[in-house]
């Protein structure tokens, strides 16, 4: 990219223009207008007129003298107006200040709307490298450059290179910055930059604590949390616009897959399309199952155009109040047969500058049956309900038998237990406990309550789906004062009746009473509640509908006891070994979209779990913002890369002061000379104080 010969930016050009347009004509008018002269009578104007004529005729600088004052005053006004416009210009100075190079690596930076098929991030990296070269320009005799650091940010910020004066380290760090498919959030990056640029001990670092920091931002301006940020004193932001303002994009905003309730072997896929272009577009979609094409939309899908003004980057609603509205269209594919686990992927046939959101996938697990255990004296109502649920295996264990299992208890997907049957040292697992057990911290049982009715329930909670507890009466319940992280979903008059507790690898749904101490088993809601609890605890829903994941999240799989390591295959085909801790293998945060495959082996053979990660929402808006608002400050973007913008107003103001002094001196000089000349040339005529009488 060709850098402009003279790069100059104006922060407040209007102020300077207004001041200059008012004051300069005023000054000229003052010169054109007749001076307001004092009046005096003299014996004759003969000598004065002759003197004025002589002055004009004989003094070569006579005509220049008032012009000199005018020139100085015009210059003075010019410099003041120049300073008011807050010009910033590339002076070729590194200035010795600190520079933070911030590279946006969000999904939208992967767009190829710029020249040569390069992504925006590629261009940004090139410009940042040029910027580093410019900072270190000047060779051996130049002043030492200030320290520079490199931060890459998307969903999360990462320091690629801490503050250094090494040109090579900086260039290598910029080269290392990689693309992500996450959203763009700058808050963490600013916090990191400030944490590193705040000098806690100026003497030690040889720098002034108030020394400024220049934040050089390469981005398309579509940063979600700009409005929450603020430029602090001493910080100056240079925004390098990367991307075209008229870039259009069509992408898949969301995808979901659901197994049919009646036939779990059938999967239906739903897709939401988003159009950020100003024209309606048509596209075909194809559905792939594990990489094989299974369905195509029978006719092109029409996605309406976006409407409303371009959203202001970080600036809230647009000035005229109209909101930007992208074009949306939803597509439902006909059900496809897939009794096994797999990855459903939807692709746009139409290609555009951002490839990342042209495909979206969702992983569906195989319909899976649960392994359950009934521990202790579980009442018959509960036993019957559990027995009616589809399960691979249901075992009834005594409290002692369960205690002997130890870590192997984790093999059960769900354990339904009476309160007294559970050991104090509860093994990892998911429990439905009828009554308050002793092995779960934070429940804080302190006595019993009698004659309770339900005062409130969280009907939106999955456990209470289709459960009505209005007629529930409890004769005796254990009184609990649960900790704040224990969620109460059913409350009695003073005490919680049903709570959900999560303690590391242990998740438990706890009722405060034995069902037999209430009329609940005789109500239809009891069966529903037990079924909900077992399904929720066993994560049975995951088999039917797979949540889609977004970059920035962590992926986690729960594995059987004894599994030490899980193999993860990344979208680009590379494989990693992920260690298992407390029964789970966790990997993240995820940077790129695609399919992530976990594989491990246990006593049931090889296990697979697939995760589909899609591009962060909102990244499909590709139009680069020419101006961003950080808090209340607007920053105008620059198109180039390798420039150092320095504030020019202090120089302009200093020049104005010098000219002011010069103008003052020129204006008053004649008075000083006149007084002295009067003393020397008039008084001696009457030497010794004698009167002036000349022949």
């Amino acid at each position, binding site marked *: 990219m060709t850098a402009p010969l003279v790069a100059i930016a104006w922060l407040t050009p209007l102020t300077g223009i207004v001041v200059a347009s008012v004051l300069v004509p005023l000054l000229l008018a003052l010169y054109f207008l007749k001076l307001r*002269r004092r009046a005096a009578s*003299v014996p004759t104007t003969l000598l004065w007129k002759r003197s004025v004529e002589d002055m004009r005729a004989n003094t070569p600088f006579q005509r220049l003298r008032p012009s000199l004052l005018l020139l100085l005053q015009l210059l003075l006004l010019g410099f003041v107006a120049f300073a008011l416009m807050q010009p910033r210009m590339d002076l070729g100075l590194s200035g010795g200040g600190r520079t933070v190079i911030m590279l946006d690596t969000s999904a939208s930076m992967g767009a190829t709307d710029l020249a040569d098929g390069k992504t925006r991030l590629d261009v940004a990296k090139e410009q940042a490298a040029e910027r580093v070269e410019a900072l270190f320009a000047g060779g051996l005799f130049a002043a030492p450059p200030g320290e520079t650091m490199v931060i890459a940010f998307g969903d999360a910020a990462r320091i690629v290179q801490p503050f250094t004066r090494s040109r090579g380290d900086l260039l290598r760090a910029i080269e290392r910055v990689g693309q992500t498919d996450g959203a763009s959030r700058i808050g963490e990056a600013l916090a990191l930059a400030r944490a590193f640029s705040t000098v806690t001990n100026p003497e030690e670092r040889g720098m002034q604590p108030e020394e400024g920091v220049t934040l050089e931002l390469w981005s398309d301006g579509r940063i979600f949390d700009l409005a929450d940020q603020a430029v602090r004193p001493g910080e100056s932001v240079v925004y390098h616009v990367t991307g075209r303002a008229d870039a259009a994009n069509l992408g898949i905003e969301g995808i979901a897959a659901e197994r049919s309730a009646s036939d779990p072997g059938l999967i239906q896929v739903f897709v939401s399309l988003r159009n950020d272009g100003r024209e309606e577009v048509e596209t075909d979609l194809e559905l792939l199952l594990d990489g094989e094409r299974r369905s195509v939309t029978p006719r092109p899908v029409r996605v309406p155009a976006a409407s409303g003004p371009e959203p202001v980057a970080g600036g809230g609603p647009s000035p005229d109040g109209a909101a930007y509205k992208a074009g949306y269209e939803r597509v439902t594919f006909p059900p496809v047969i897939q009794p096994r686990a797999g990855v459903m992927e939807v692709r746009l046939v139409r290609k555009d500058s951002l490839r990342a959101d042209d495909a979206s996938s969702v992983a569906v697990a195989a319909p899976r049956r649960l392994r359950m255990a009934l521990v202790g004296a579980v009442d018959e109502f509960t036993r019957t309900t559990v027995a009616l649920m589809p399960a691979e295996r249901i075992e009834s264990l005594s409290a002692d038998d369960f205690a002997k299992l130890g870590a192997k208890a984790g093999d059960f997907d769900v354990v339904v237990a009476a309160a007294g049957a559970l050991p104090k040292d509860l093994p990892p697992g998911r429990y439905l406990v009828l009554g308050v057990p002793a092995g779960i911290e934070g429940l804080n049982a302190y006595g019993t309550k009698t004659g309770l009715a339900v005062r409130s329930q969280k009907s939106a909670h999955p456990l209470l789906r289709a459960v009505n507890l209005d007629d529930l009466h409890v004769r005796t319940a254990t009184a609990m004062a649960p900790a704040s992280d224990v969620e109460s979903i059913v409350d009695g008059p003073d005490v919680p009746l049903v709570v959900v507790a999560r303690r590391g690898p242990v998740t438990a749904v706890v009722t405060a009473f034995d069902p037999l101490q209430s009329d609940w088993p005789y109500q239809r809601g009891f069966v529903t509640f037990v079924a909900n609890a077992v399904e929720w605890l066993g994560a049975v829903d995951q088999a039917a509908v797979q949540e889609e994941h977004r970059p920035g999240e962590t992926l986690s799989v729960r594995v059987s006891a004894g599994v030490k390591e899980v193999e993860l295959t990344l979208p680009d085909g590379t494989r990693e070994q992920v260690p298992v801790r407390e029964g789970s293998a966790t990997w993240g945060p995820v940077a790129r979209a695609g399919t992530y495959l976990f594989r491990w082996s246990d006593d049931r053979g090889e296990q697979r779990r697939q995760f589909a990660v899609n591009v962060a929402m909102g990244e499909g808006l590709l139009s680069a913002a020419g101006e961003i608002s950080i808090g209340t400050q607007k920053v105008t973007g620059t198109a180039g890369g390798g420039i150092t913008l320095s504030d020019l107003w202090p120089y302009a103001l200093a020049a104005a002061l010098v000219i002011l002094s010069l103008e003052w001196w020129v204006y008053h000089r004649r008075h000083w000379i006149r007084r002295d000349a009067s003393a020397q040339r008039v008084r001696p005529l009457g030497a010794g104080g004698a009167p002036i009488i*000349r022949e």
Partner: protein
Amino acid sequence: MSEFFDRPARATRPERVDDLIGNELMARIGQLDVVSRKIFSGKIQGERRSKRRGQSVEFADFRPYVHGDDLRFIDWNIFGRLDRLFLKIFLEEEDLSLLVAVDTSASMDWGDPNKLAYAQRLAMALGYVGLVNHNRVTMAAFGGEGGLRILKNLRGRRRTSEMGRWLLDLQPGGANSFEESMKSLAVSRQGRGVMLVISDFLFKEGYEKGLRYVAGRGYDLWCLQTLAPQEIDPAAHGLAGDWRLTDAEDRDEAEVTASAGLIDQYRANLGAWCAGLRDFAVRRSIMHLVVDTSTDVDVLLLEYLRRRGLLR
């Protein structure tokens, strides 16, 4: 430093004869007499000597005998001692005509001390000297309202009061031509003697033609050029900055910025104007003096005019 131009002092002109000439000044100048560098014949016999021979018994001088001289005036005693012929010259005593012309134009009513008031006092003092010495004193005022005014042929101390009142009646104003006034004065002039012109001589039409009318007609002419201190050095009296200067006589205006260069140029021009008048006067045997109105009248009379030979 006074700021005359910002706050012009109110002119204080004499209102009584005593204001024109006090007793002390009369006592001090009573012994003075007006001296003419030339001795002319008067109309009547007076105390003044004349070149005319035989009318006086007072010896004046010797001169070598030339053919044709009256042998009666040969000093035979000198011939006896030196063996050379010398002629004795006797002077005839005649009265002296003293003409004092005062410029009463508007330009004279300016300055601190006021130029016209100064001219009145000076004319009064000189006229008094003439009166007490039985000279024929004529007062003239020119340039003011009413044109040329003349008070003719005063003689004797008793006319002092009359002369004083006449001077007190002079009012400044107008801008009558100096040339015309001098022409009228020359025509109406009687006899010969000493003529003093008291003026600032700042005439836009020039002083040359006017002075030519009165110079060389048997009068011993003196030009007393009175200038106010504010004219001589305006910068020292508050003329600084931007001014609109109005001519006191013709109301002409000049807008000036009193810079150092302009003040210098003004002083040079004023000097050149005075030098031009002096050169003009010297060539025509006219005595010329620049008088600063801040000079005391008695100092002027007793020291400067006596030193210059007008008074003795």
